């Protein structure tokens, strides 16, 4: 998280486009942009509504029913219905006679995203409320919150402080452990998370069985993104009807989005699902050039021409028409002075280096894909480079234990389409960009400039 985040998360877009009561999760403007301590949190949101009842598959309890009615989906990127995960854990626990575990996933290992760190920094108690309520609904005796290792603010320290406040107030019924995920792209992937919490390396494992069936210590395990749990804590207090007051009927509620424009600084803003992308893109939507492009969904997401993106709304129903998804709410406008092809090649190289190297197609395919993209970016393509890229992208898709090869292939294919004119330009030794300074954030361990590739 950067200083700009704390200073700018209520930007113009959220004010003008947000109806009634947004932001719901983050502190309101008049409360200041400071972290909310327990007193401030309880003053705003009220007491923690424990139900004093553990659900069973036959009678799952009021919270799970409310979550089902609310239509809440996971906010970590996959948008899986939350009540279905809760029910799956409940059923597995009952069938296998095991006490489940609950994990709040704030690993946020996607470098372009900063919304989970911002939420944990500003409103940790809302996440911790959600963790307690989910644990109660499932009868879990283990609750763990995972943060990312490498953020500008000491997010883990902030959570630790919040946990001390809660212990003193005797608020939590299930003790919460805090864990820190390594700063690697795949460490937030849920099987990697469970693997590392169980004492293994922080890399994905092969399913089946699902984590909801056999997860941490072989117990049925609920892994939910931290924002999802914060939303759950609000639904528990205010009900599903309130939750649906914003968003679309098919995809209700609000979500935290990470918006990056020309200055490259992340702005975390809470938006209603279905918001016009035009409202989030700034200049890129007002005066798009043929080179203007938008990256939706981060490094496993998709590039779209800005003119096309400006006609869409941020919800999966609409984005699916363009082959894109909301993901974890990352919306990045490529600045007019940068080259989308060079940026994509740099990110592809990072993604190839972040492969866990466990699965043959990913281990073999991703470095080749990344190298081919560099050939295009440096204007030295072989006659078969484009053809190779298309074939390898197809070959790696769906063939990993996790979705890293799929997401990387999707990102690269969308770059080839969106920056097709740029590829031609580079083949003639030209480039539309006037700046070579890296724009998309890539952790320092990976290559930063074009010179690092050769």
């Amino acid at each position, binding site marked *: 998280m950067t200083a700009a985040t704390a200073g700018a998360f209520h930007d113009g877009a959220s004010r003008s486009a947000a109806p009634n009561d947004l932001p719901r999760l983050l502190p309101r403007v008049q409360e200041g942009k400071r972290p909310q301590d327990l007193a401030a949190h309880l003053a705003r949101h009220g007491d923690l509504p424990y139900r004093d009842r553990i659900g069973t598959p036959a009678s799952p309890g009021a919270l799970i029913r409310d979550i089902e009615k609310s239509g809440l989906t996971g906010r970590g990127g996959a948008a899986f219905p939350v009540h279905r995960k809760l029910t799956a854990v409940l059923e*597995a626990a009952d*069938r*296998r006679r095991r006490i489940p575990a609950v994990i709040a996933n704030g690993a946020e290992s996607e470098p372009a995203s900063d919304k989970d760190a911002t939420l944990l920094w500003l409103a940790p108690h809302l996440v911790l409320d959600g963790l307690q309520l989910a644990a109660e609904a499932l009868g879990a005796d283990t609750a763990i919150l995972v943060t990312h290792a490498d953020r500008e603010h000491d997010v883990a320290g902030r959570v630790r402080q919040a946990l001390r406040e809660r212990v003193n107030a005797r608020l939590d019924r299930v003790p919460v452990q805090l864990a820190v995920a390594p700063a690697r792209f795949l460490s937030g992937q849920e099987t990697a998370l469970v693997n590392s919490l169980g004492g293994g390396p922080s890399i994905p*494992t*092969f399913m*089946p*069985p699902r984590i909801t*069936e056999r997860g941490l210590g072989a117990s049925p395990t609920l892994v939910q993104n931290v924002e999802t749990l914060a939303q759950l804590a609000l639904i528990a207090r205010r009900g599903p009807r309130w939750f649906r007051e914003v968003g679309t009927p098919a995809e209700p509620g609000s979500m935290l989005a990470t918006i990056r424009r020309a200055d490259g600084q992340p702005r975390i803003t809470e938006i209603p699902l279905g918001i016009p992308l035009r409202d989030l893109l700034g200049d890129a939507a007002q005066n798009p050039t043929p080179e203007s492009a938008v990256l939706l969904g981060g490094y496993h997401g998709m590039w779209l021409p800005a003119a096309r993106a400006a006609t869409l709304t941020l919800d999966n129903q609409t984005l699916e028409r363009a082959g894109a998804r909301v993901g974890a709410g990352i919306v990045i406008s490529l600045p007019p002075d940068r080259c989308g092809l060079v940026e994509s090649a740099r990110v592809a190289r990072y993604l190839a280096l972040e492969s866990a190297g*466990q*699965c*043959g*197609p*990913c281990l*073999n*395919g991703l470095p080749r894909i990344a190298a081919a993209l560099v050939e295009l970016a440096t204007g030295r393509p072989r006659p078969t480079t484009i053809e190779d890229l298309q074939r390898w992208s197809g*070959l790696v898709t769906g*063939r*990993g*234990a996790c979705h890293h090869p799929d997401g990387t292939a999707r990102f690269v294919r969308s770059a080839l389409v969106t920056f097709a004119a740029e590829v031609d330009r580079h083949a003639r030794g030209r480039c539309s960009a006037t700046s070579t300074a890296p724009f998309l954030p890539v952790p320092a361990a990976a290559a930063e400039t074009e010179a690092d590739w050769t």
Partner: protein
Amino acid sequence: MSARSGKSATHAAGERLVVNPIDCEAHGACAELLPEMITLDEWGYPIVDPRPLPPGLERQARKAVNACPTLALRLLRADGR
């Protein structure tokens, strides 16, 4: 969550082949024994037909499963268990 794939002999219908890509080391025995369902990519790793096993291939499929040196190839029941 009882009968694991391969251990039960009663349910031939609806089985499908799944390769654990982490365990697979590209020995290629599966593609040799079951070319109807498995081909190899340019790096020698199997591309497995995700559709249910057609009738008549069960015995060959079981042979391929048993021949995998790293036990990466499995037959899963339709319900995924």
